[in-house]
């Protein structure tokens, strides 16, 4: 229904709200239909599984107390919606949203009161908070509305989350989240105390009971219908409703009752006092609501049969009269344009109906016979008179509070309707009958309920049955004879009247402030969180790369270092070396690495790195890893070429080093990490006991993999899946290089490709180091030589590719060699030569490569084998003779293509394209370096 609402509003304007009102009205009808069951103390229950694992079920149960709430939620909701149809002007902005959210809220509220699963109850609980957030922010242009909406949301959610935690604690202990069963098995001790306090956090915050009262008055920024429904009749009742539902279970367990009574008392008194101080009618009602909720909490928390009866009656009564009063204020506000009691005058005489409604409602509020309010108050006073000393103390509070209520009740009537000599009568627009209908009905219901007290008693007593019956059962009624209760009522009324008269005389009392302003506390907290957030973020989020790396590395050193040092013992035993050659190689590597780390010029650092790289390659040789050594040599060479290509554009020297302190720190971390790495390597190798899986590789490589070079068999067969991922990395990296270098290139977009097609050959050739070079003839010679070499090298690379399966080589080595051949061509003759050598788009090459490799894998699947399974084919060909072919070679061909593609792409981007940038740059290179 909420979904449809906006459409309806668009169609019918405000009148659509009548249609929407049918929804809550329907629930009322349904509830009325269930009266029989409920009266007889039975319950309407319904359960649907949702997330059984979490104990979260769509479990609904409606017995007496929920039934009352359903009537209130539905009835008041329907009336308020009908009222809104008149309240809002046709042009009202966001009316559709209002209708939708209002309707949705009613639904959530309904769910809340009939939920029988604590978690489900929380679900609806939060939903009502969210909808109230949206409704308070109905006019979001106002900062006040936004602030108030956010405040209401945060406060109620804060409480709600506490309550959820409490529920979880109870539920996990009891093993069920059923409201009706959880009480069966209660934990004890601190656990229970914490759980109960947490639950109360939710209840009190929702009902704006101290110390959470402050959000409700601010929430008056909402449209009056919203205030009437959410913040008087429905949502704020959720808290006291929950108290009413749980008290039968927890009344005996401290600190349940203590907390409720303490907070309730404070709220009742301070709320009443503050209400008295207001000059804005709506705010007067708002603080009145706060105060009344405090009272209801006290009564429902008392945990005796009579009190329960009284509480239920008070709750119903309050919903009726407070909603009515809000609606009245809405009408006053709407028709006169003000709610200030000192700008209103003479309204009573001109609007008798309105005044009558207000009087009836206020009568109920101040407990004046024969209203429901009176009946309820009687029961309340009687209940507390019967109790022990503490409840007698509470009785005093209740009487005092009631007196205050009387005070501001009368003041409200005076402020709204009386003719004030010092104020001249204010004009107001006419009021339609439909507009007053809702408040009239509400007020009359309150009156009628009072007159029909015994009937009401019949409906509410099933709830009171939850408590042990006392000797003489109290029953709601107008007349119990001259009981103490009656006396207290009289006292309250009299004192209240006195208070009212006092307020008329002087205004000095209005300057008396409340000692506590929880609102400012909230503001302070929020500000504190903001500040904390900024401070903390400022500390942790430095935005500096070295800082982040430093943190990670320090963590590494602390952890690994700690384990190495303290978690001994570690295996001992160390051999200096396998062959002395390793010693030599190691020496070179160490020297070169240290020198590279301290080099001041880019080129030097690069060359030294290359040296250490070659050193590592030689280590590989001595270790017995020829393939590795071969690849390492080639990779180092390609790396050097790449560096040269880029470094020719960058300034020759590194920027001057920063502060000594920073540098020392850096070196310290470096050393520490180095030591830790070495240490870990040492202990890990020393800790090996098990046989490596690779022991079986040699014979399997031949028998199953069909190759003698085990490393290659691993790459293209045993662990070909790794290699597939690896070439994907290469492909992406190549794409990335192009994307970075050509990033700025508009041509790219026109062509829709990121790589330029090979340009026509024969354009101006550039030599590496200088753009317009003097020694172009020398370049020519070089070109001739390289052209001669080129094809031989390429042939060799192909040889490597195909022998790889049995001898050192393979796709990687082959591809790199071919790539180097291209590099030489480029270095000799610039991009013209490059394009002449490889008139293909690198992208195509890469794509084809991946397609071939992955295709091989897919093909083997299509042929019924596992992915990437290889087959050995032996056959004789004319001329060639016997051929021993392993399908995994196809995979290796793909690798070869990709590697070539990568190098070609690098040459095109870091080489040719940078040449173009350089030519297009106005400044010749030397100045640029100087700059």
């Amino acid at each position: 229904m909420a979904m449809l609402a906006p459409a309806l509003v668009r169609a019918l304007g405000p009148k659509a709200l009548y249609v929407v009102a049918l929804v809550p009205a329907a629930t009322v009808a349904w509830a009325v239909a269930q009266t029989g069951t409920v009266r007889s103390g039975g319950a309407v229950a319904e359960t649907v599984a949702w997330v059984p694992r979490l104990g979260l079920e769509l479990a609904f149960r409606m017995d007496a107390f929920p039934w009352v709430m359903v009537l209130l939620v539905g009835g008041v909701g329907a009336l308020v919606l009908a009222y809104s149809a008149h309240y809002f002007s046709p042009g009202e902005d966001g009316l559709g949203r209002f209708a939708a959210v209002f309707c949705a809220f009613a639904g959530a509220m309904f769910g809340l009161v009939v939920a029988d699963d604590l978690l489900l109850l929380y679900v609806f609980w939060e939903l009502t908070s969210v909808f109230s957030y949206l409704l308070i922010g109905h006019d979001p242009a106002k900062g006040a509305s936004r602030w108030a909406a956010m405040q209401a949301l945060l406060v109620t959610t804060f409480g709600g989350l506490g309550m959820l935690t409490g529920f979880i604690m109870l539920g996990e202990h009891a093993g069920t989240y059923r409201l009706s069963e959880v009480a069966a098995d209660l934990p004890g001790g601190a656990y229970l105390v914490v759980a109960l306090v947490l639950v109360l956090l939710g209840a009190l915050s929702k009902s704006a009971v101290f110390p959470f009262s402050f959000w409700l008055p601010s929430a008056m920024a909402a449209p009056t219908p919203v205030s009437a429904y959410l913040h008087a009749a429905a949502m704020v009742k959720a808290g006291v409703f929950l108290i009413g539902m749980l008290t039968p279970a927890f009344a005996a367990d401290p600190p349940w009752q203590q907390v409720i009574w303490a907070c309730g008392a404070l709220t009742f008194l301070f709320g009443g006092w503050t209400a008295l101080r207001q000059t804005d009618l709506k705010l007067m009602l708002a603080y009145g609501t706060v105060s009344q909720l405090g009272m209801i909490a006290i009564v429902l928390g008392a945990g005796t049969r009579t009190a329960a009866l009284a509480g239920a009656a008070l709750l119903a009564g309050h919903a009726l009269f407070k909603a009515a009063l809000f609606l009245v204020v809405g009408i006053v506000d709407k028709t006169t344009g003000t709610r200030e009691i000192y700008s209103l005058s003479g309204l009573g005489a001109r609007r008798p109906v309105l005044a009558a409604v207000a009087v009836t409602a206020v009568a109920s509020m101040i407990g004046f016979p024969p209203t429901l309010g009176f009946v309820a108050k009687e029961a309340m006073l009687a209940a507390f008179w019967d109790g022990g000393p503490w409840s007698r103390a509470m009785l005093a509070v209740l009487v005092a509070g009631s007196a205050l209520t009387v005070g501001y009740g009368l003041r409200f009537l005076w402020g709204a309707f009386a003719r004030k000599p010092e104020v001249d009568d204010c004009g107001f627009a006419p009021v339609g009958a439909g507009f007053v209908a809702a408040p009239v009905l509400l007020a009359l219901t309150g009156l009628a309920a009072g007159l029909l007290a015994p009937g009401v008693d019949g409906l509410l007593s099933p709830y009171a049955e939850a408590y042990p019956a006392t000797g003489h059962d109290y029953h709601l009624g107008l007349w119990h004879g001259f009981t103490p209760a009656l006396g207290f009522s009289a006292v309250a009324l009299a004192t209240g009247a006195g208070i009212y008269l006092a307020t008329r005389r002087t205004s000095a009392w209005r300057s008396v402030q409340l000692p506590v302003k929880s609102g400012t506390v909230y503001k302070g907290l929020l500000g504190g969180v903001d500040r904390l957030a900024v401070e903390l973020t400022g500390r942790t989020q430095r935005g500096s790369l070295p800082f982040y790396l430093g943190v990670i590395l320090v963590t590494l050193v602390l952890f690994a270092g700690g384990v190495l040092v303290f978690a001994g013992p570690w295996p001992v035993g160390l051999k200096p070396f396998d062959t002395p050659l390793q010693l030599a190689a190691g020496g070179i590597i160490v020297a070169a690495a240290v020198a590279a780390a301290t080099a001041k010029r880019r080129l030097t650092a690069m060359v030294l790195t290359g040296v250490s790289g070659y050193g590592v390659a030689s280590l590989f040789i001595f270790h017995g890893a020829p393939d590795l050594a071969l690849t390492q040599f080639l990779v180092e060479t390609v790396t050097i070429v790449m560096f040269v290509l880029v470094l020719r554009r960058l300034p020759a020297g590194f920027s001057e080093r920063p502060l000594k302190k920073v540098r020392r720190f850096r070196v310290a971390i470096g050393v520490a990490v180095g030591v830790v790495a070495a240490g870990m390597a040492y202990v890990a190798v020393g800790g090996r006991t098990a046989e490596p899986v690779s022991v079986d590789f040699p014979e399997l490589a031949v028998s199953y993999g069909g190759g003698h070079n085990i490393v290659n068999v691993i790459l293209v067969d045993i662990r070909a899946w790794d290699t597939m991922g690896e070439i994907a990395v290469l492909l992406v990296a190549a794409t990335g290089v192009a994307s970075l270098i050509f990033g700025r290139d508009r041509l790219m977009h026109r062509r829709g490709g990121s790589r330029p097609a090979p340009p026509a050959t024969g354009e101006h050739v550039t030599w590496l180091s200088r753009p317009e070079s003097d020694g172009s003839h020398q370049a020519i010679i070089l070109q001739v030589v390289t052209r001669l070499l080129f094809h031989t090298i390429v042939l060799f690379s192909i040889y490597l590719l195909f022998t790889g399966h049995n001898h050192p080589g393979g796709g990687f080595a082959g591809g790199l060699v071919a790539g180097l051949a291209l590099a030489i061509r480029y270095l000799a003759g610039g991009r013209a030569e490059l394009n002449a050598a490889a008139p293909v788009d690198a992208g195509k090459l890469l794509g084809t490569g991946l397609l071939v490799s992955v295709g091989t894998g897919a093909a083997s699947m299509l042929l019924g084998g596992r992915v990437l399974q290889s087959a050995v084919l032996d056959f004789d060909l004319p001329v060639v003779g016997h051929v021993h072919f392993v399908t995994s070679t196809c995979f290796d061909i793909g690798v070869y293509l990709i590697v070539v593609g990568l190098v070609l792409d690098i040459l095109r981007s870091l080489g040719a394209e940078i040449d173009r940038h350089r030519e297009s740059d106005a400044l010749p290179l030397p100045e640029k370096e100087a700059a």
Partner: protein
Amino acid sequence: MTPNLVYVIVVGVLVGAGVSLLLERTLTRIIIGVVLIGNGVNVLILMGGAFGAPPIVGDGPDADLSDPLPQAMILTAIVITLGITAFLLAMAYRSWQLLGHDEVQDDDEDTRIIGLADRDEGPRAKEDDAEDLPNPVYSCEPGKERR
């Protein structure tokens, strides 16, 4: 297995030198650091496999062969490092092209927040209109319609 001292030292030095470069602000230095660390880690992986003859079946008894699996892992690692180095170099060039240098800059937004922290302020964007709401009393000027 018994660890090999030379390897242990080589690993330590390569990684150490590389890390000290990695913490630099110049991208070129960082790249060189990456290459050095990469080599160091490769040697570390190499340590995990037995020393021996080239793992090519037929040249000798299978028992004497060096462990091929770490070699395959290293080979993969080497090639991946190659691709990444290329990418990093391209970045260095690009950053030089855009900024005229290849120094790694700090993040502006973070610097701004650090500034806020130093000036003891809250977040920049918050409910600024909040102040127009005197708490706890909500008052509005009479004479015009409000809700």
